């Protein structure tokens, strides 16, 4: 799907500045000089095309009592899909990427206690037979930004 200038403006707005008011789409429409119906139909199109993954609440997971960690695992190349199926089955594992390194499978775990993280890692290890897993909990946060400015793209 090709994005036009209006799509990009709309994407920038909905990433950062979504109004919490009775008719938020109308307020966005006024900023863009288009109708509320057009905002709704464009957002639907962007979601159907999976450019917008989700439009909803973005929460402070720490404040909700959850702690995150990054884990890395050495997975033989011919077992990636099978091991990913085990890893991805946990709802608290929200991101999983294959990266170019000996430790090639990198995933994040969000859980409401360190014991739960340990339990998940133990289960993954038992089920896959892979014992070399790094657990790298965050000690300091310097920046967490998930917005992408689209004008220059």
């Amino acid at each position: 799907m090709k994005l036009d200038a209006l799509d990009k403006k709309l994407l920038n707005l909905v990433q950062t500045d979504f109004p919490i008011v009775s008719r938020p789409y109308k307020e966005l429409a006024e900023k863009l000089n288009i109708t509320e119906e057009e905002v709704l139909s464009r957002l639907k199109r962007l979601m159907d095309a999976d450019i917008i993954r989700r439009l909803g609440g973005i929460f402070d997971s720490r404040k909700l009592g959850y702690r995150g960690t990054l884990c890395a695992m050495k997975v033989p190349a011919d077992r990636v899909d099978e091991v990913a199926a085990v890893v991805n089955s946990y709802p608290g594992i929200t991101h999983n990427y294959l990266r170019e390194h000996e430790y090639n499978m990198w995933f994040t775990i969000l859980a409401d206690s360190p014991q739960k993280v340990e339990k998940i890692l133990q289960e993954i290890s038992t089920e896959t037979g892979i014992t070399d897993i790094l657990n790298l909990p965050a000690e300091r946060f310097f920046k967490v930004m998930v917005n992408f400015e689209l004008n220059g793209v």
Partner: protein
Amino acid sequence: MLTELEKNIIKALQAGLPLVSRPFAQLGLQFGLAEEEMLNKVNELKQKGYLRRIGAALRHQRVGYVANAMVVWRVPEDRAKEVGEKLAQHPEVTHCYQRKTGKHWPYNLYTMIHKQTREECKALAEEMARSVGVADYRLLFSTRELKKSSMTYFAD
């Protein structure tokens, strides 16, 4: 402490805001809340810091950022804070964390960078390295997204 109602509202907002003219009125229906009460609850969650904001999460590979690298840095413990703060200032860095190290894994700072090409990622990492005077770093390019989803809070 969050009430059961608040937890359920968080779950609903996490699932997504309906694409209708009055989304908060529609959300309120499932909790027996009028539109205004629903808006008050959402604003309250925001004021208390549970809700950062309502917004869209994008699949960034689809909007032009095709090279994603995690750059890991080995920084002396007593410089970690200073270096982390400096690296975080680069506008191309979306995430910057200090993490515990592992047995055979000495890297303690992590930055995520997103560019159009791998070469641009490498050049940026070099520039970042120079700016903080840290030579021990590696770029781990992502080659495949195996999972990217949103968290389900209070699922159990």
